[in-house]
């Protein structure tokens, strides 16, 4: 063989490789759900409740049904085949026979008791935006017009809006069987709580508060926000009646979960459903949930025997896609005067909206789990109550429970520092879990894998030039300006997680195939929708096989292609999915080495995969090309003994534990004394997500997380009126931050690998939202310290701040 000049391929793990996804996304060449068009496809539109709470007295669909182009209109009762249905679901003789009773109530993914929740409300509506009927029509415009032609009469019921009144059953009870609107009446966690029996022993926590030299107490609200993925939800469902097979495309974060749940609800076997998440334009948690519209689309395709499409519009997204956060905390911190914390109490009230969705009930439990933050706290007591209100249901939103814990605790740390006249960095330092103590089990039962919090603190103080920053603040204040500096530390739980922590299973799956020509196709059960795993995963395989990244395709998001999977949430793709991919890759590499060894009459242990070649260490010129070995594996003449032909392997990775990334954020913020307008002047973030595959992508994830965390602190808020009407139903009233609202983000990193996976990678998708929110509010409180303010509830609306500055009381 003549040795050709072979390019030397750079090692890609750790390199700033540009996202391979971006060119197609930026140039409009990606395929989203709405780009999918099937012959004969019908379009769905939902009639939604415009009252927050009411009993449906009458629905008249006749005018809508009479409109040209309308194929069918179904009410909740129709579709659920409940008494009072006007349209038999078996109209075409296929549906009712197969699934008997019609669409059942939607399943949830948590073990807690839950009221029946139908995809289309059959009798009572419980939030503005809840579906009451669905139209199937020949085009989207007709479908939308027909929605307006449906007449619904409600007997209006009192709207339950304030969660603390709701807990007393005021003004009414939303769900039968859930007295005082308590979805979860009382869940304790922490010191003295026996998780097995639920028995509570107060002695340790009481002692901590009895011995305290200082106690900080504050009620805080981590308010409700809307996830606002750039692409709203959407679904296309195609029931192939001949094959009795359903294909469902959805803007989802987890097609495999969608497949299982749609099969269960429709009474199909999992072998009869293929779920595809094509390009998905962001999720931030809101596309984990399996929504009623998905079940309805699947059912209607089956009933009508035509493909159907539903695309959510932005107005619907604001009211019918889950919201995030919405937690009240009564925080108490017991400490000594030297700043050492003796005990923490968090009494949490979660306003979960009208129904339990997939993970709704579990999200606030993560707030309890993370109540210890980065601190060695000897006694912690959390108590959680979850409350139904007449609002859109809540569920996972970027950070999901952990930002809430971080916010409450980090606000508390600042209040403690202020009370004691200590530097906020110093109070934190005095309470940090020391690095020798890892793995560290918190009082709430989390087992932190690894950490070096002092190092991250030192790094961020250095990055921000803390002393100079404080001096600058004081100088500006001397000019009469209202300037504050805020610091917040965070730790989060991600890389979800062992199967014991997820009802779906906590593993991830991958497969790697080296094709006959030496090109590599890999699949991952992670379902990236903006995270960039097509790039990071390809980087890993490029290094593993010593081939150019251009020779690798990462496939995902299609249960017909990706055999198994869980999905993308809880910052798990790299830590869990990445590890599964490496495991599958290593299996293939091992087998390929056997083929190469046979071909070259070499010892497989001596082989090196590099620069598109496989060769005996030290003698690259006598090697074989990667493609040549691949070809041999598929036409193995002779077949080496003990080997099967081919190069294709799969792997499941079950992590032994979650990962716990951490970091520290600092910002400087100014408030206009005359108008109350806040403006961020500087922002510094040090994040530690363990080993990094691609710093560019990690920084991008941090940027996005910061934007959403700062967004919550400063701008974003879902507001309901006293009648349960949504007052922030469009971007004209729901303030999303814009690029011009941010200063340059100064980022740095420390690297503390995790022992729970071989990559040492922890996860970074959500981290940015944790530290930034309290850092900003801490800075605002600092800026307004001259007015004696201890705490400000988010968001930092100008009028709110103006009222503090000008002593105007509450609006």
């Amino acid at each position, binding site marked *: 063989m003549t040795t050709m000049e072979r390019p030397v391929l750079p090692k890609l793990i750790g390199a700033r490789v540009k996202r391979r996804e971006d060119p197609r996304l930026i140039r409009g060449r990606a395929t989203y759900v709405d780009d999918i068009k099937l012959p004969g496809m019908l379009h769905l539109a939902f009639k939604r409740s415009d009252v927050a709470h009411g009993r449906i007295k009458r629905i008249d669909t006749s005018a809508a049904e009479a409109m040209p182009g309308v194929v069918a209109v179904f009410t909740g009762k129709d579709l659920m085949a409940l008494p009072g249905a006007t349209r038999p679901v078996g109209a075409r003789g296929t549906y009712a026979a197969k699934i008997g009773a019609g669409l059942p109530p939607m399943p949830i993914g948590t073990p807690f008791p839950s009221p029946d929740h139908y995809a289309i409300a059959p009798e009572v509506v419980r939030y503005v935006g809840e579906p009451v009927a669905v139209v199937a029509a020949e085009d989207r415009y007709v479908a939308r*017009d027909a929605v307006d032609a449906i007449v619904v009469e409600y007997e209006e019921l009192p709207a339950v809006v304030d969660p603390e009144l709701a807990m007393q059953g005021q003004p009414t009870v939303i769900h039968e069987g859930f007295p005082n609107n308590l979805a979860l009446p009382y869940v304790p966690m922490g010191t003295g709580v026996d998780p097995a029996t639920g028995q509570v022993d107060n002695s340790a926590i009481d002692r901590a508060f009895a011995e305290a030299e200082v106690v900080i107490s504050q009620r805080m609200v981590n308010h409700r926000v809307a996830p606002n993925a750039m692409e709203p939800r959407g679904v296309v469902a195609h029931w192939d009646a001949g094959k009795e097979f359903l294909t469902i495309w959805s803007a989802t974060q987890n097609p495999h979960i969608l497949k299982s749940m749609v099969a269960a609800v429709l009474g199909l076997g999992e072998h009869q459903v293929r779920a595809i998440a094509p390009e998905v334009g962001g999720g931030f948690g809101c596309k984990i949930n399996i929504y009623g519209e998905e079940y309805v689309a699947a059912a209607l395709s089956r009933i009508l025997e035509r493909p159907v499409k539903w695309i959510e*519009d932005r107005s619907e997204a604001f009211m019918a896609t889950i919201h995030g956060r919405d937690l009240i905390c009564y925080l108490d911190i017991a400490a000594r005067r030297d700043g050492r914390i003796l005990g923490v109490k968090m009494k949490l009230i979660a306003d979960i909206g009208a129904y339990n969705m997939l993970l709704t009930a579990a999200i606030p439990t993560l707030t309890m789990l993370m109540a210890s933050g980065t601190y060695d706290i000897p006694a912690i007591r959390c108590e959680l109550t979850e409350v139904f209100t007449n609002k859109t249901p809540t569920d996972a939103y970027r950070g999901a429970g952990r930002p809430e814990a971080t916010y409450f605790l980090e606000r508390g740390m600042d209040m403690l520092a202020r009370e004691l006249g200590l530097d906020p960095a110093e109070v934190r330092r005095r309470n940090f879990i020391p690095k020798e103590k890892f793995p560290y089990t918190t009082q709430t039962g989390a087992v932190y894998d690894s950490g070096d919090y002092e190092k991250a603190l030192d790094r961020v103080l250095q990055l921000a030039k803390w002393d100079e920053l404080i001096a600058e603040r004081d100088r500006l204040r001397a000019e009469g300006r209202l300037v504050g500096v805020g610091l917040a530390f965070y730790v989060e739980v991600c890389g979800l997680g062992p199967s014991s922590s997820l009802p779906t299973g906590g593993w991830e799956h991958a497969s790697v195939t080296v094709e006959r020509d030496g090109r590599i196709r890999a699949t991952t059960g992670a379902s990236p929708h903006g995270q960039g795993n097509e790039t990071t995963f390809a980087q890993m395989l490029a290094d593993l096989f010593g081939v150019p990244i251009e020779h690798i395709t990462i496939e995902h998001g299609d249960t017909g292609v990706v055999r198994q999977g869980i999905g993308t949430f809880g910052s798990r793709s790299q830590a869990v999915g990445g590890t599964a991919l490496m495991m599958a890759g290593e299996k293939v590499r091992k087998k390929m080495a056997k083929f190469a060894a046979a071909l070259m009459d070499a010892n497989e242990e001596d082989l090196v995969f590099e620069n598109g070649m496989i060769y005996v260490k030290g003698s690259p010129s006598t090697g074989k090309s990667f493609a040549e070995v691949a070809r041999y594996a598929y036409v193995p003449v002779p077949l080496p003994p003990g080997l099967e032909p081919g190069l294709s392997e799969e792997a499941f990775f079950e992590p032994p534990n979650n990962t716990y990334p951490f970091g520290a954020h600092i910002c400087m913020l100014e408030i206009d004394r005359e*108008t109350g307008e806040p403006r961020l002047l500087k922002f510094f973030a040090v994040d530690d997500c363990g080993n990094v595959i691609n710093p560019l992508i990690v920084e991008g994830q941090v940027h996005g997380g910061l934007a959403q965390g700062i967004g919550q602190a400063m701008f974003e808020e879902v507001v309901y009126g006293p009648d349960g009407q949504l007052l*922030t139903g469009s971007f004209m*009233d729901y303030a999303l931050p814009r690029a011009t609202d941010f200063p340059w983000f100064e980022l740095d990193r420390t690297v503390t690998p995790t022992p729970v996976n071989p990559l040492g990678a922890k996860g970074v998708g959500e981290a940015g939202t944790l530290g930034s929110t309290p850092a900003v509010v801490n800075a605002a409180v600092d800026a307004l310290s001259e007015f004696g303010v201890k705490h400000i509830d988010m968001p930092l609306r*100008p009028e709110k701040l103006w009222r503090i500055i000008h002593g105007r009381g509450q609006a």
Partner: protein
Amino acid sequence: MIPTKFAYRRAASIDEAIRLLQESGGEAKLLAGGHSLIPLMKLRLSEPALLIDIGRIPDLRGIRERDGLIEIGATTTHHELATSELLRRLAPVVSEAAAEIGDPQVRHRGTIGGSLAHADPAADLPAVMVAIDAEIHLKGPNGWRTVPAESFFQDLFTVDMQPDEVLAAVKFRPVWHAAYAKLHQRASHYAIVGVCAALAIENGTIRSARVAVTGASTHAQRLPNVEERLVGRQPTQAVIDEAASVAGDTLEDVNSDIHASEEYRRAMVKVFTRRALERAVARA
């Protein structure tokens, strides 16, 4: 966000647009930049049967100086106003106010004529036009008509314009000592309060003063009590402060919403009046 069904026609001239309006029997709407009208249609708050696109009528576009007056065609975009060399030289306040509208997309599509005709209570340009004493030039079936901006804006989304009239242009004299100061609503970037102050300063004395506010109330309007405290006096900080301190006291219907209560808006009218006056005076 699906509007109801509508037809679309592109008008080649102002007269054709007027004719189409007349023929439609009140069912048509003119379409300029579409950045107020299309959102309303998508929300189904407006359901016109016909859109008459006036965006390509040559006569309606552009910024000119003629006979000592500046003339701006109705379909001139906010971006064109913001970047106009002529305006920066002769009436910089118009450029500056246009640059504060929305975001780049909005400024590249939205037009001055659309903004004035629509008369959103929180729009910026109405206050500017009132303060700089612009004339609004309208053409209808019976020919041309001119309305001073001050009386053009009448109430919430209500202007002195017939359903078959086209707003063709605005005209005003060059104005130097004028400035616009705005408190942005953080979601939409419209004005919570916007104040435009236009002064004539001669030999160190304020000869005339027109101050107009938007965002605070139903429509853009003058603040006469502020103006009174300025005319004939020297533009000192004390005079400005005194004048600004009564700003808004004459306003009756002051808006209140989730972004700003009436109390806050009233306070902001004073703050932004002072800021507008300070900037108007400071212009060298």
